[in-house]
Structures are given as structure tokens and as C-alpha cells.
């Protein structure tokens, strides 16, 4: 005994109008006191349902069946809602992905934490304010007294997540369940939150960490369980699992992670043999520039979001643009796409002025520059099916009779079948939607495609497929890419050169290898240091 969590043969099914859906199909799980266990899986694997079941939040239509389901030695299978209220916060604290959703927007952070103290009668009323300050101090929120009086929207993402953790710790639980606690955060903030979780663990707290990101988990977990389709496919000590994965799915997940070492190789086995070489990059002709941006500056009121940004993209070149949220990278993308006028500076596309000109002047060249956004669904007219979405961007000179054939050919190029033609994008998976967006973009054979966080919303294995697809298309068409991402691994994998942005300015640029190996600027160094790295050396 002594296990905080002890689960045997857990099944969770949901009644839906279309029948039963099994989310968890018989898993065993134990978390010992002081241990950090991680559940890793992609969306739909059942990892979150498992976590929620442990605190009685699986949902009203969930049917839970288990041979054993114990929390801190107590059988919780027959728990009723009021019993669960005693468990939540007191026995197990829960931290979810988005603190802005998890914290009540109308109440101060301090009130939120004090409520936990009151519910579980942790301290006397007169001592609550002091305890709130102590808890915020524990999670390293600076100026705890002042922050306690603020509302969630007044806090940055990192501080909010800290406050949420403080509220989860307020009931002095022995176990903290964290469901994707860092997914919504920038990489440097993520590193701080992971450090905080590690610190709490060192102080004796047990952790159950749910994540889609093996690299995050590798930082602090003792043991990892890999889930897929409601089952645990592999589990073991973190280091062993990463170094010598036994199950093909674990290996597939590890292969799919883009990084410096994956450069030039396939990430996904579905697009060709995994870890084999990608087709050669298009020959980059730096002398022949597709796009030149000089001195771009954009202000909103007193706030300068982009400051003196300049770069060139050569024919067939992939330029990576990295930066954290608020660094101005998306604004640069909009300026380059000709959707936003800069206050100062110019852009020339195909040696033609692209800014400070009328839209009418830009229009003939529009077909040469295409945009792929993070949210493909939002970029499709909601009334249209796949065929119309893609056909809209076909050359207007193509005859009516040939248009369907062209669309089918484009679908084929992005690895989709013609039976999707009549489907509505809403009915497609995230990966399929992004492929449709890519098919639409390559319909014009553009010389430059701006990809604004094209894979950020995708699962790692789907991301791998899309990245492979982009590499294949780039090689076939010689298209230049402006690839914007917060993920340094993705950029390292795909880009020729990289531009690092912070607070609206370019802090460093150069060939990917140079910048990532010998970063000269402090900010680049801190980004790289914060990047959770997978130790996978020694694998074939």
C-alpha cells in the first residue's frame, strides 16, 4: 500500500445519441507517494478522461467500471457527488490547460484560492488572507498581496497558471493532477511552470501529468504511460521509454517529433518510410529574391508591435520566423500577405512594390503568394464543401468541365481521396482540413507560401504528416516558404534560415544551423535553453 492512486482495469464509456463510445478500455495505473507519473497520448486517446475520472468529473453520462479504483487507500467507486467534493482539492488537486477558463473571471485570484481554504476548512477565517499570500508566494507569484486582489484577466498566462496551481494546492492535497498544464504557454513560461511543478514534487507532492508532448513529460516524470485508443500501449521509466521504446506506436510518436536531428528526414511513416531522407530541398537561389522586406514598423496607438523588421526570401528558400506570443510575428505575416499596411517600411514581392500600393495593383500578383493559417476551418467559407473551397482558387481560365479533375488532382497531391469532394470541412479531422488548405494554396503554383503556425493545432503524428507534405511539395514545386512558428523544433526541422523576433524586433537571423547552434543573442539562448529536449540518442 501507500499508493496514492491505485487503478485496475478501468473502463469508461459514454452514452451518446449514436450509441456507446468507449473512451477508456481497461487500464491499470498506480501513483506512489512522491512519484511523478505521466500519461502521454494524442487527442482521443482517453488520457484526459482517465484524469477526470480520478476526481469524479468524467461527466454525467459516463459509465465507469473498474476492478479497483482507490484514491489514498479509499475505494471511490461508489462515491456520490458530495463525497467527490471532499476528494477534489483535499485529496487530489486538479490543474487544467487554460487558467483563463478555469478561474472565475468575476472573482479575484485571492478569493478563488480562499474559497478552497474555506471549503475544506484548512485555516481559520482570520488567517485565510495570510494563507492566500503564502500560497501565491509558494508558486513564486511576485508581490502576492497585490496579485491576490487582481482578476484573472489582469495576469499574464504564466502568472494565471501559477495562481491556478496555488488554488489546487490550497487544500493541501497529496496528489496534483495536471492536464496539459503548459500547452497554452510560451516555451520560456512553460519551462518556469515545469520547474515549479518539479519543485513542488521535491517537497513531497505526487504528480499525475497528462500531456500530448513527450518532451515536456521527459523533463519531470519518473514513469510514462503511453495511451492510444483508450488503452495503455507501453509504460516504463521515462529514460528507458525514450531511449528504447518497445511498442511501435511509442517509436512512431518519438519519430514524429521535429527537431534539429530530424532535419532532412521523414517524420511520419505514413508519407513514406519513417526517418528516411526527404526529397532534396529545392535549390535556393539567394541572389534571386522572391520577397524583400525593409524597415517594417507597425504601431497601434503608442504601442509599437513591429519595429524595423527587414529580411529577404530567396527563390525556393524556407525562412523560419520564430518568437513567442506577442512578439509581432503574426503582424509581420499579415503585412507580408498584403493584408495590413505598415506604418513605415516597404515590401517588394517578385521585385514589385507590395506595400503602399492599391489593392488593384497587387491583385495580378496575388496568385503567386498564398497563405495557410493556423485555423483552416476559419479560412473556409462556412457554406462550402471541399470541392468549392479548393476550386475557388483554381485558375479562372480552366474550363468548367475540367475543374473537378483539377481539384481531384490537388487532393491527390496532398494525400486526400476524391470521396472528400462533397464533404463539408466541418466534418473533416484537423489534419485533413489543413491538407485541404494546402491543396487550395498550391492550386496557383505560388512562388511563396506564408504558413502562419500551420501545425500548432495538430497532434504530433498529424503534424509530422503535414510537415512531410510541405517538404515534399516544396521539393516538387520549388516554392519558397515563410514559416511562422512558436515551435523551435519545427523551424529547425524545416527551415533554411531563421529569424528570431522578440517584442516586435528581430533579435537574430541567419542560417538555422548557425543560429540554433551558436546563438549570439541572449533571447535566442533563453528560448533554446527553455526548449524541452528529448534525449533519444542511442536509438537506431
Amino acid at each position, binding site marked *: 500500500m501507500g499508493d496514492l492512486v491505485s487503478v485496475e482495469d478501468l473502463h469508461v464509456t*459514454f*452514452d*451518446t*445519441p*449514436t450509441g456507446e*463510445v468507449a*473512451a*477508456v478500455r481497461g487500464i491499470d495505473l498506480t501513483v506512489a507517494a512522491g512519484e511523478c507519473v505521466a500519461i502521454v497520448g494524442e*487527442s*482521443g*486517446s*482517453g*488520457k*484526459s*478522461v482517465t484524469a*477526470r475520472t480520478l476526481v469524479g468529473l*468524467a*461527466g*454525467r*453520462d459516463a459509465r465507469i467500471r473498474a476492478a479497483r479504483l482507490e484514491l489514498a487507500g479509499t475505494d471511490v467507486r461508489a462515491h456520490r457527488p458530495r463525497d467527490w467534493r471532499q476528494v477534489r482539492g483535499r485529496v487530489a488537486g486538479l490543474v487544467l490547460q487554460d487558467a483563463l477558463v478555469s478561474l472565475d473571471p468575476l472573482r479575484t485570484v485571492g478569493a478563488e484560492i480562499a474559497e478552497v481554504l474555506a471549503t475544506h476548512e484548512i485555516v481559520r477565517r482570520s488567517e485565510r488572507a495570510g494563507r492566500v499570500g503564502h500560497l501565491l508566494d509558494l508558486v513564486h507569484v511576485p508581490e502576492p498581496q497585490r496579485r491576490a486582489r487582481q482578476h484573472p484577466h489582469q495576469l499574464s498566462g504564466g502568472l494565471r497558471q501559477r495562481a491556478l496551481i496555488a488554488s489546487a494546492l490550497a487544500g493541501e492535497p497529496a496528489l496534483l493532477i495536471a492536464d496539459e498544464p503548459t500547452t497554452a504557454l510560451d516555451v520560456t513560461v512553460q519551462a518556469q511552470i515545469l520547474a515549479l511543478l518539479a519543485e513542488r514534487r521535491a517537497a513531497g507532492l505526487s504528480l499525475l501529468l497528462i500531456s500530448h508532448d513527450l518532451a515536456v513529460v521527459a523533463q519531470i516524470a519518473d514513469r510514462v504511460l503511453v495511451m492510444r485508443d*483508450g488503452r495503455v500501449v507501453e509504460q516504463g521509466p521515462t529514460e528507458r521509454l525514450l531511449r528504447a521504446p518497445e511498442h511501435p506506436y511509442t517509436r512512431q510518436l518519438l519519430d514524429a517529433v521535429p527537431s534539429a536531428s530530424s532535419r532532412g528526414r521523414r517524420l511520419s511513416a505514413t508519407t513514406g518510410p519513417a526517418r528516411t531522407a526527404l526529397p532534396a530541398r529545392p535549390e535556393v537561389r539567394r541572389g534571386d529574391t522572391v520577397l524583400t522586406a525593409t524597415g517594417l514598423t507597425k504601431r497601434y496607438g503608442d504601442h509599437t508591435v513591429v519595429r524595423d523588421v527587414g529580411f529577404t526570401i530567396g527563390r525556393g528558400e524556407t525562412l523560419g520566423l520564430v518568437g513567442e506570443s506577442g512578439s509581432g510575428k503574426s503582424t509581420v505575416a499579415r503585412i507580408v*500577405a*498584403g*493584408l495590413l499596411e505598415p506604418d513605415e517600411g516597404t515590401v517588394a514581392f517578385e521585385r514589385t512594390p507590395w506595400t503602399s500600393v492599391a*489593392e488593384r495593383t*497587387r*491583385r*495580378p500578383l*496575388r*496568385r503567386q*503568394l*498564398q*497563405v495557410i*493559417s493556423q*485555423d483552416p476551418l*476559419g*479560412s*473556409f*467559407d*462556412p*457554406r462550402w464543401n471541399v470541392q468549392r473551397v479548393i476550386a*475557388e*482558387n483554381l485558375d479562372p481560365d480552366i474550363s468548367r468541365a475540367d475543374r473537378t479533375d483539377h481539384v481531384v488532382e490537388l487532393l491527390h497531391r496532398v494525400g486526400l481521396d476524391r470521396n472528400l469532394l462533397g464533404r463539408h470541412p466541418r466534418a473533416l479531422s484537423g489534419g485533413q482540413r489543413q491538407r485541404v488548405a494546402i491543396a487550395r494554396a498550391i492550386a496557383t503554383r505560388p512562388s511563396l507560401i506564408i504558413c502562419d503556425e500551420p501545425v500548432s493545432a495538430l497532434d504530433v503524428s498529424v503534424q509530422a504528416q503535414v510537415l512531410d507534405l510541405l517538404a515534399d511539395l516544396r521539393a516538387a514545386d520549388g516554392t519558397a516558404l515563410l514559416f511562422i512558428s512558436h515551435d523551435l523544433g519545427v523551424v529547425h526541422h524545416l527551415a533554411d534560415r531563421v529569424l528570431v523576433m522578440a517584442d516586435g524586433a528581430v533579435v537574430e537571423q541567419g542560417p538555422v544551423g548557425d543560429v540554433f547552434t551558436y546563438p549570439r543573442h541572449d533571447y535566442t539562448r533563453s528560448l533554446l535553453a527553455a526548449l524541452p529536449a528529448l534525449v533519444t540518442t542511442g536509438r537506431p
Partner: protein
Amino acid sequence: MTVTLDGVPAGATFTSTTERAAAATRRRRLRIGLIAAGAYLTVLLVAVLWPAALAPGDPLAADPLNVLAAPDGSHWFGTDNLGRDVWTRVVHGAGHSITIAVAATAVAVTGGVLLGLLAGLSHRIADETLSRTLDALSAFPTLLLAMLFIAITGPGTVSLIIAIGLVTLPRHARVVRGLTQLVRRSGYVEQAVTFGLSRPRLVLRHILPNAIGPIPVLAVIGLGEAVLIAAGLSFLGMGPQPPSPEWGAMLSEGRNYLHIAWWITILPGLAVTATVVSLTVLGRHWQARLDGRHR
């Protein structure tokens, strides 16, 4: 309650069994109302298109020997003060009332969509001017505003149509303006700009079709209201002139005989009420279905 959980297909929602039972009862009740409304509107449509099928007589034929007869086998809605058959007049009056309502709604929708689109696409000053004007227009009670208009143009069917159209136009304009602003900032319109679409094509192909989504539903509900306003104005003598059998005019003519011959007023009044209720039920049901699909 809608819970989205990892591991469950998108779109799957969960409701408890009691909630489900309650929803089923609601649906059953709704279906009965819907069938009744549909049946009534079908009869109404026949009355508009082919009144002789329901009432072969002449709505203007007076019978001085048979005035103010109570409803019976031969005149089942009774006769009025001139001995005209009330049933025949109600049936033939449907054409008048519904035509006015449909035409007025067409005016309101056309004008509302155009003005709303214009306001939504305009820059701040033009948008503000248009929107405030529409706000001022809708600040007046609709009936009062319509009376004001008719006081200037003089009574008659055409001025009635324009008056009703004008006073119900702002609501369509407002919805379209709001949606236009939303749609024109949407990802897909921005994306279409990068495809090099010209502005008129952008508006016609993407913005307009997506901004008028709720208009058909709004128009059906508005149709009921138009019937009501038309009857009200006709009652006050501002619509089709006697002896034409318009519902509002019939109410007005019969009101002096209310204490001895209730059927002259009550029965046409019921026709107005049933029309408004049926159109509203239909419109709301349609709206609910659209909302359900988008949720």
C-alpha cells in the same frame, strides 16, 4: 449540458435521461403546434390563391333581407350589417391582407439588407450616420410611424405597403450590418483577399451570402407582424377602402354592431390572430432548427 472531453468524437453531446425525457415532451408539444400552424397556413394559402374553392360566393353581394344573421348552416360565419356573408369576406380578404404583408416584408427585407450591407461595409462616419438614422427610426412605435407616413402620402394599398415596409426595415438592416462587420473580418474573407478577388466579387460571393443567414427566418416572423400592422392601419381607415373585404377594414365596419352581432368582428379578428400565431410558430421552429444545426 454539453461536455467536451478528450476521447469522445467531436459533436457528441451528453444529456441526462431526465433532460432527454423533458426534451421529448417539448418536441411532441411543439410538433402538434407545428402541424396546426402548417394546416392553417395551407388553408390560408388556398384562400389567397383560389378563394372561390373555399367560398364560391361574391364577397360584395349584399342581401338586404338577411342582415346580421347569426352563424348557421347556410352562413356559417353569419352575415354583416348589409347582409354580406362574413365567411366569404374573410376568405376573400385573405388575399388583400396577405398580399399587403408579403409585399411590405419584401420591401423591408430588400431595403434592410441593402442598407445593412452598406452600413456594415462603410467606414465609420457613413456607418454611424446610417445606423443612427435607423436607430431613430426604430425608436418610434411602428404603428405611429406608419400612420405618420400615410398621413403624408394619403391612404391606399401602395402607401400601406411602403409604410409597413419602412417601419419594419431597421431590424433587418441591423442584423445584416452586424453580421457584415463580423463576416468581413473573418478568416475566410481575409483568405479570399489573398486569392485576389475583386471587391464586388468578395461582397457578392462571400460577405452577402454569409451575412443574410438569419434573414429568411426573421422575414417569416416579420410577415406575421406585417399582417397585424396592416390590419391595425386598415382598421383606422388607412388601407384598402370599403367595401373591399380587408380584415382590418372588416373589424372597423363591424365594431358598431359588436353588442348585437359579435361574429362580424370576432371571426375576422380570429383570422388575423391565427395568421400571426402560425407564422410566428413556423418562424421560431425554423430558427430553433438552424440554431441547433450550428451549435
